[in-house]
């Protein structure tokens, strides 16, 4: 039963990815060889380069041959070459991936813990000043733009904390935790909190609403009638059921964010996928744009697949559906 469910979902994910890649191909490769070569070379490339690309990539071949070559390349991880940076697209993505990955990983832990805790406290103290305080925080968090928050954090770190002798935090380029763990933390703490703060607000609100719904359910009354201690009623019976929509949202968010956390990366100068994407759009570096788009869609599809599978463990009713 479970194997069939899994196979169906994987096949579905594969179909979605195929549709995305085909759409990308159609968007960028359909047209005269001249136009396509110019797109790939970038707007400022000399005509000689354009001619070379035309020959190298076989753009004069029938469209279907090109399509087969394009898909074959994807299967082997060959995403083409950035002619502007003269580097394979795969290499560029691979270099930018760690910063985004670590940023999202660290921030997601923060916002999940804080958001769920905030939501539970808010729901169990509904309509008290604790709840109102949390709501105020949530509204502030949701309405504060990330770049304002990020710049504010940098300002506080450099102009307030540093003169006071606390100069640990510093904005700067990404450092691998395997190379220098301390430097990694110095660079990452602010982006983590910046990204997490906004997300925490969203997750608090989501958890609160879901918790309030669940705590009104009959099975919560049953749990109390059984003499289950209140703490276990809230967590074992309530939160367990209330987490389902939170997990869904989490899957969507992780997928989207892994594709590039554009604003946070830019504010803190982290060389992640978001930065790479911004640069390639600005320079008209088509191969990189294609590669990044495909990578982002892979993240989204895979995270949704993971959520679907996680769902079947969270809710036994899903497996049979």
């Amino acid at each position: 039963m479970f194997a069939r469910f899994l196979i169906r979902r994987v096949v579905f994910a594969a179909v979605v990815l195929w549709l995305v890649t085909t759409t990308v191909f159609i968007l960028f490769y359909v047209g005269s060889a001249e136009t396509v070569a110019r797109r790939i070379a970038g707007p400022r490339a000399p005509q000689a380069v354009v001619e070379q690309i035309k020959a190298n990539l076989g753009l004069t071949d029938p469209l279907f041959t090109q399509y087969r070559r394009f898909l074959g390349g994807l299967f082997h991880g060959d995403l083409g070459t950035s002619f502007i940076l003269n580097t394979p697209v795969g290499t560029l993505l691979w270099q930018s991936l760690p910063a985004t990955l670590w940023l999202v990983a660290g921030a997601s832990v923060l916002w999940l813990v804080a958001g769920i805790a905030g939501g539970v406290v808010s729901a169990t103290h509904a309509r008290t000043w604790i709840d109102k305080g949390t709501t105020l925080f949530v509204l502030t968090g949701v309405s504060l733009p990330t770049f304002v928050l990020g710049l504010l954090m940098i300002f506080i770190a450099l102009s307030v904390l540093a003169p006071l002798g606390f100069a640990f935090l510093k904005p700067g380029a990404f450092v691998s935790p395997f190379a220098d763990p301390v430097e990694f933390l110095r660079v990452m703490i602010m982006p983590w909190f910046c990204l997490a703060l906004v997300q925490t607000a969203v997750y608090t609100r989501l958890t609160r609403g879901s918790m309030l719904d669940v705590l009104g359910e009959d099975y919560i009354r049953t749990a109390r009638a059984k003499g289950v201690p209140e703490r276990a009623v809230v967590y074992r019976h309530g939160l367990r059921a209330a987490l389902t929509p939170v997990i869904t949202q989490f899957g969507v968010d992780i997928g989207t964010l892994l594709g590039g956390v554009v604003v946070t990366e830019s504010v803190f100068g982290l060389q992640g996928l978001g930065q790479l994407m911004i640069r390639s759009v600005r320079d008209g570096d088509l191969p990189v744009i294609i590669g990044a788009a495909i990578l982002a869609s892979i993240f989204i599809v895979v995270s949704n697949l993971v959520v679907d599978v996680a769902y079947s463990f969270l809710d036994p009713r899903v497996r049979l559906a």
Partner: protein
Amino acid sequence: MRLLEVTDLRVSFPTPDGVVQAVRGVSFGVDRGRTLGIVGESGSGKSVSTQTLMGLTRGATVTGAALFEGRDLLTMPREELRRLRGARIAMIFQDPLSSLHPLYRVGRQIVEMIRVHEPEVGREQARGRAAELLGLVGIPRPAERVDDFPHQFSGGMRQRVMIAMALALNPALIIADEPTTALDATVQAQIIDLMVRLQREFDTALIMITHDLGVIADIADDVLVMYAGKPAEYADRRTLYYRAHHPYTTGLLESIPKATGTRERLQPVPGQPPSLIHLPPGCVFHPRCRHVMDRCRSEEPPMLAVAGEGHRSACWLPGAAVGPGAEAERLRDEAQAAGTRRRDKGEGDVAPAD
């Protein structure tokens, strides 16, 4: 000493629209091995009363006393009451699908019940007991079904699971809040039979809350009829069915379809129950009463003895006017006529609503 003795229980809830007086002075009791039926329509306060005893109504203002095995449920510390819940007093609810946790196996839910109160019982041992209990309530292949989720059971089977859970710690009292309302008629009968059989086997006291007088007729020893948060009539089952005093009880009895074969129109009780925020003055039932008299509109009748202490009714009609007979009907009409004459002298013409 009675197992449970509730005296003058009052429950109200503050709401933005005003204070909802859900229960306004109800007293009842139940002995070991006996069954008390509480009857009333939605909003009569029957569920609120029992859930208040269990400490399950939050944010309510509660007064009165509820002695269970000599200790007052309404004033005991929360933690002490929690230890009683499930262990000494168990509850069965109306909709077994929404009352069981959808994400946990039924066995685990029964095991939790056991281990919350008896932590020294091992997981495996508790699981064994859960399977035994499922067998006891008539679930086939209990050893396998203990690992099923609630959605894998039918409605009747789910209610059996709830009953198994309620019985897990051999409680002294089971409160069943409309346990058959969400079930098919044939399944209803099976569940009622099961409850009666198990009650005898375990010598448990049972409070059966329902809006269905038919269910009460099958199992209750004593019956409390509630209306708009107040007791209307209290009697043993036979008296209630054959010698009812309160016009509301009479109305309820007349609204039951009879299996006599003759085609008759059902007699509904006209009108609707009052708002519990804005209660009518006098007797709460007077706007719907067929025999309304003058004093009913201004004076609230207490629970008066009808024939001996065992039969009480909150109605101003003469005590001899009981049951459906012609003599009783004559007494009621007389009383009403006398009341009407009195009204003619003073107040305006208020016709009974119907």
